[in-house]
């Protein structure tokens, strides 16, 4: 059995996403050339939330896409775990765009490495920034986030889950500990 500890509730998540949205606008001085891309699966819903907030603040629609990084993983041929592939859908050109990548948890950094490789296969963005809801440390690659919801020091044997669905009131971030 694993023990569950809630570290962020739905209101906390909402506030963090609001702050991140303002920070994205501040850092990029508006929405010009801005596109948002969520990483499957956890990042997609968060990307939609951030897009909606930014669109509301600036009164324009910011393009949004989703990216599945399975084909770019560095452990496909060695890992016994085979994730079910999700869909990639980026219905616009990335050339000269400011791309904000969105994911739920930043951990080893390998997902982000894969995501950047995938993005570059789609075009040449002017820049790529990273927004995550949780940064739990333990990086294995020289990667850092530009926008962080919460820094959450964690142990390697713990699992951090972000449960965010269309049902906002039940959103939460939990730590699962094997006992």
């Amino acid at each position: 059995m694993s023990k569950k500890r809630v570290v962020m509730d739905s209101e906390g998540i909402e506030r963090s996403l609001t702050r991140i949205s303002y920070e994205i606008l501040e850092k990029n001085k508006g929405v010009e050339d801005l596109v948002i891309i969520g990483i499957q699966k956890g990042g997609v819903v968060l990307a939609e939330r951030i897009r909606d907030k930014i669109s509301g603040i600036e009164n324009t629609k910011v393009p949004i896409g989703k990216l599945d990084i399975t084909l770019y993983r560095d452990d496909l041929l060695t890992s016994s775990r085979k994730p079910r592939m999700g869909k990639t859908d980026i219905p616009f050109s990335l050339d000269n765009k400011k791309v904000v990548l969105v994911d739920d948890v930043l951990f080893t950094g390998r997902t982000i490495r894969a995501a950047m490789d995938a993005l570059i296969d789609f075009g040449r963005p002017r820049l790529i920034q990273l927004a995550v809801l949780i940064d739990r440390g333990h990086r294995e690659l020289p990667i850092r986030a530009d926008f962080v919801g919460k820094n959450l020091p964690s142990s390697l044997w713990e699992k951090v889950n972000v449960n965010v669905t269309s049902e906002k009131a039940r959103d939460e971030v939990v730590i699962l500990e094997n006992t």
Partner: protein
Amino acid sequence: MKLARKDILGIRDLTVEEINLILDTAESFIEVSTREIKKVPTLRGVTVMNLFYEPSTRTRTSFEIAAKRLSADTINISTTTSSVVKGETFVDTAKNLEAMNPDIIVLRHSAAGAPHMLSRVVRQRVINAGDGAHEHPTQALLDMMTIREKKKRIAGLRVAIVGDIAHSRVARSNIYGLTKMGAKVAVAGPSTMMPRFVDRLGVEAHHCVNDAIRDADIIMMLRIQTERQDMSVFPSLREYANLFGLNRRRVALARQDVIIMHPGPMNRGVEISPDVADGPYSVILDQVTNGVAVRMALLYLLSGGN
């Protein structure tokens, strides 16, 4: 999810879950072929050998493109230009190829069971690209993918398969797959082209093509193997075209939203009339597009997770 098997030898031994996994994965691969840069690094360092003992354009090209889009290295061996013409046995050829250490061998052979034998003599993974009149699993998978794409489901649909059922590996693989997935399959063809005990395959058998086609959601026409004509399986191509060919009048017997499939290569004017082949309900070229995605999915699912 993981495909827990070494080889893909036939549809007969795949489970419904495995078929769904392959089709879902293939659906995700469609997108890669529409990119500006049609390549992902997934299978870098993987070597795929296409060993073809029978002529083929579509299947071999499709496997080669699938492998290349995943960054695998491909080698094509067609036996007309290989040591087979010098008299080397199948097993010796296989052992020599094994010694060069490829990862996956794709085999087409005129003898039923050749891929099964290959999988026993080499340690590599084997994909059956058609063995004699036995099975053609990747064709059936791409057909099921196309049906699912157009009809959003397979279960409950009525599928008519028309032509040389006895000698067709496409028909056999599709019958295994479609019945497993819950479709109702009706077959039609001249008695000389019906396998013995055909009803044991769980299909309705008809000698009148109209009975099979009536109310069908899908009509699958098989290629008439004109090279067999001297075996007096049927009297003349003209008679066959009249009695079993698909024309607009016969299509009208099927459901209004029927889709028409053909594994290729087509004999226009024999088993299918040109206006039907190029008509609005024809999904023949979608089948070819989906073929690349299905083969990418198989190469991907068979690689890795050793």
